[in-house]
């Protein structure tokens, strides 16, 4: 029987300038300065005197086609049919005329898209797939994010923070959401539960053994079947064995908790980029609104807002006030689990007489 004719893919990466707004194309590499006339609006001026206004609005990221078409209708009506997206899933409309800014904002707000996310605001959360689509999720990113952004709605729409605030959430310790001023990340607290009936058929055992960061996994014969066992004293409950070996179930409705990390910064401005640090853990995976997580995130944000100086990011603020005062101001307990014992950890200890009282 003849095989059906399959279409061969055309491999290319598209024209890098094709989708630009005409003003972007005309002034490419020739911009002079910008300002922000109001939260959610950027105003750029080129060396030729050309001007564009970019209006930024929040979206739910996981969008149905009706939402995308609505956003397109708005672009066709107000913004010359061009849009772009930011790394945090905000949509940006590009306008050549200032007179269209206010009507566009009104239209976006009328349709439920908050305008903001610029400058010293709390922008939309960078997040992952979660229960909706991921194969190894401990929680649902979209739900946590929706709950957080509901609570931080006004902070998105205004620019009242000391500097910009970037958030992320991640549904497992791999941290696909990325480094952030405040990151919400699943923290497993128990070793994987192994279904020994399935391991031999599903998992490539040497690859799973090699995946463990602390060499806690070894091949074993269990109930007469080739399987794997975990040295539970060594296990750090990271879940790295679960993707290559799903019978090693790490997610646990009760024992997979949420942890909060602060002070990640990707920018090189002022200090070098920093990784975020764990400041809270043990928060329940309390779907559908995760109120305990929200409460801690908001508490940290409000302490930062009240105390940080202009232009200090979360990391810069903590660097000035010190960790003891961070825990004091946020009323979070500093526990032994926050003292790093991973490789290179002694660089994270205080090797000085610099002590704050």
């Amino acid at each position, binding site marked *: 029987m003849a095989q059906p004719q399959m279409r061969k893919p055309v491999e290319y990466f598209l024209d890098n300038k094709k989708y630009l707004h005409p003003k972007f194309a005309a002034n490419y590499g020739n911009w002079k*300065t910008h300002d922000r006339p109001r939260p959610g609006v950027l105003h750029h001026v080129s060396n030729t005197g050309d001007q564009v206004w970019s209006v930024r609005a929040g979206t739910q990221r996981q969008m149905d086609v009706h939402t995308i078409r609505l956003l*397109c209708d708005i672009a066709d009506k107000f913004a010359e049919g061009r849009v772009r*997206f930011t790394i945090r899933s905000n949509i940006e409309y590009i306008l050549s005329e200032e007179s269209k800014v206010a009507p566009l904002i009104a239209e976006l707000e009328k349709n439920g898209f908050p305008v903001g996310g610029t400058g010293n605001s709390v922008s939309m959360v960078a997040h992952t797939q979660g229960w909706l689509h991921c194969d190894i999720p401990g929680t649902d990113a979209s739900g946590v994010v929706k709950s957080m952004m509901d609570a931080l709605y006004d902070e998105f729409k205004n620019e009242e923070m000391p500097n910009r605030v970037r958030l992320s959430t991640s549904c497992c310790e791999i941290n696909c959401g990325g480094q952030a001023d405040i990151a919400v990340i699943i923290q497993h607290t128990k070793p994987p539960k192994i279904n020994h009936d399935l391991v031999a058929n599903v998992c490539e055992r040497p690859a799973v053994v090699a995946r463990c960061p602390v060499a806690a996994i070894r091949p074993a014969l269990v109930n007469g079947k080739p399987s794997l066992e975990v040295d539970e004293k060594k296990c750090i409950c990271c879940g790295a064995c679960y993707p290559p070996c799903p019978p090693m179930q790490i*997610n646990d409705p009760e024992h997979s908790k949420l942890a909060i990390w602060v002070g990640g910064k*990707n*920018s090189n401005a002022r200090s070098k980029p920093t990784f975020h640090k764990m400041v809270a853990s043990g928060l329940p995976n309390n779907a559908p609104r995760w109120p305990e997580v929200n409460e801690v995130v908001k508490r940290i944000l409000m302490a930062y807002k009240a105390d940080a100086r202009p232009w200090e990011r979360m990391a810069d603020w903590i660097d000035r006030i010190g960790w003891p005062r961070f825990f004091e101001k946020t009323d979070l307990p500093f526990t032994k689990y926050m003292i790093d014992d991973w490789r290179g950890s002694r660089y994270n200890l205080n090797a000085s007489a610099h002590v704050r009282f």
Partner: protein
Amino acid sequence: MAKQPHATPMLDQLETGPWPSFVTGLKRLAKDKDYVVDLLGHLEHSYKTRKGYWKGGTVGVFGYGGGVIPRFTEIKDEKGEPTFKDAAEFHTIRIMPPPGMHYDTDTLRKFCDIWEKHGSGLIALHGQSGDIMLQGCTTENVQKAWDEINEMGFDMGGAGPAVRTAMSCVGAARCEQSCYDEAQAHQKIVNQFLDDIHRPALPYKFKFKFSGCGNDCMNAIQRADMAVIGTWRDNIKTDDALGKKWFAKHGMNELVNDVIGMCPTRALQIKDTKDVRKDAHISAVALNDTQSLEIDNKDCVRCMHCLNVMTGALNVGNDKGATILVGGHSHLKIGATMGTVVVPFISLKKDEDYEQLVELAQTMIDFFAENALEHERTGEMIERIGLVNFLEGVGLDVDANMVTNPRMNPYVRTDGWDEEVAKINAKKKAAA
């Protein structure tokens, strides 16, 4: 009209509150699609039991080895039949977006039409990988959807142990701080590695990210195996009119506290304009008729802070290019690593410069393919073999910009010292 919806009391709670709700979007799709009716049932089950129920598998398109993320349901009845049978398969197709994520509405509408016809109608703009994520498709429809998307002029993104979809910032299209043509670098590098994107055959993933300046809006240093960060070698450019305008609005307190006091290398000073140094590496911007902000560009590390505060009054220089850092990645397996400098400056002005960047990327990928262990990222490989071995392997010279400080321990064999010094001196002489 689709079938009767499942009760979703938990998801319904995510329709309250002011932020746009993805649940409301899913419900709109569920009006016409049994597929999404069952997807909502599936998701509600996860919310109730606090667990995920998708497992991977193998689904692809003709000609490619990756780019589709297969998902099969694990929620099954006692006979092993899927409980939510219309959503038993929920694959995602990753599509590479245009550099800077610019679109016209025609393109977005075409994506919507294709995905409404062949998929769930749910699209994430964008995934953390930088891809357009077309979420939710049956095995049968993956090829049909892909054929139409490819006809539109879009190509599939990376997955698995492959070169991955790259990301670039808005850059030169709109930003005065852009130090190179990010979109061009992005496109040239991706085109070089199309085979490595579509047919996973590397030890593990390899990511490129392009940021136009040190603000690193693409999180490249933390997340990319090779980060291209825009910078400049000459002096910060200044604009006296904008400097005076800024100072009139913000005043001395803000200048001292927010600009001068926050410079990480103390490169800024207030001077009477008549006392500003005349050396070639000094630039200055007027604050008023008698005072200026003096910048010692030899001390400046191009961190971007003062440019961010005094936008337009201070700006990037003319001798532009990029710093290249290698080895950023997240926690698995050895703990997160930042990228570290391997090329302090590469000029990115002419077309040939971009060809050189592509060549450098090819050398890095070749070395990674040859030398990394299975499931080892570039940052982990460098940690294992040491930066010097990596540099020698890819043919780059050592530079003091690559370290925070020189070694702090004597545990090193130095009997090649004289030869190294001779080599460095010979290079200096040749360059002179």
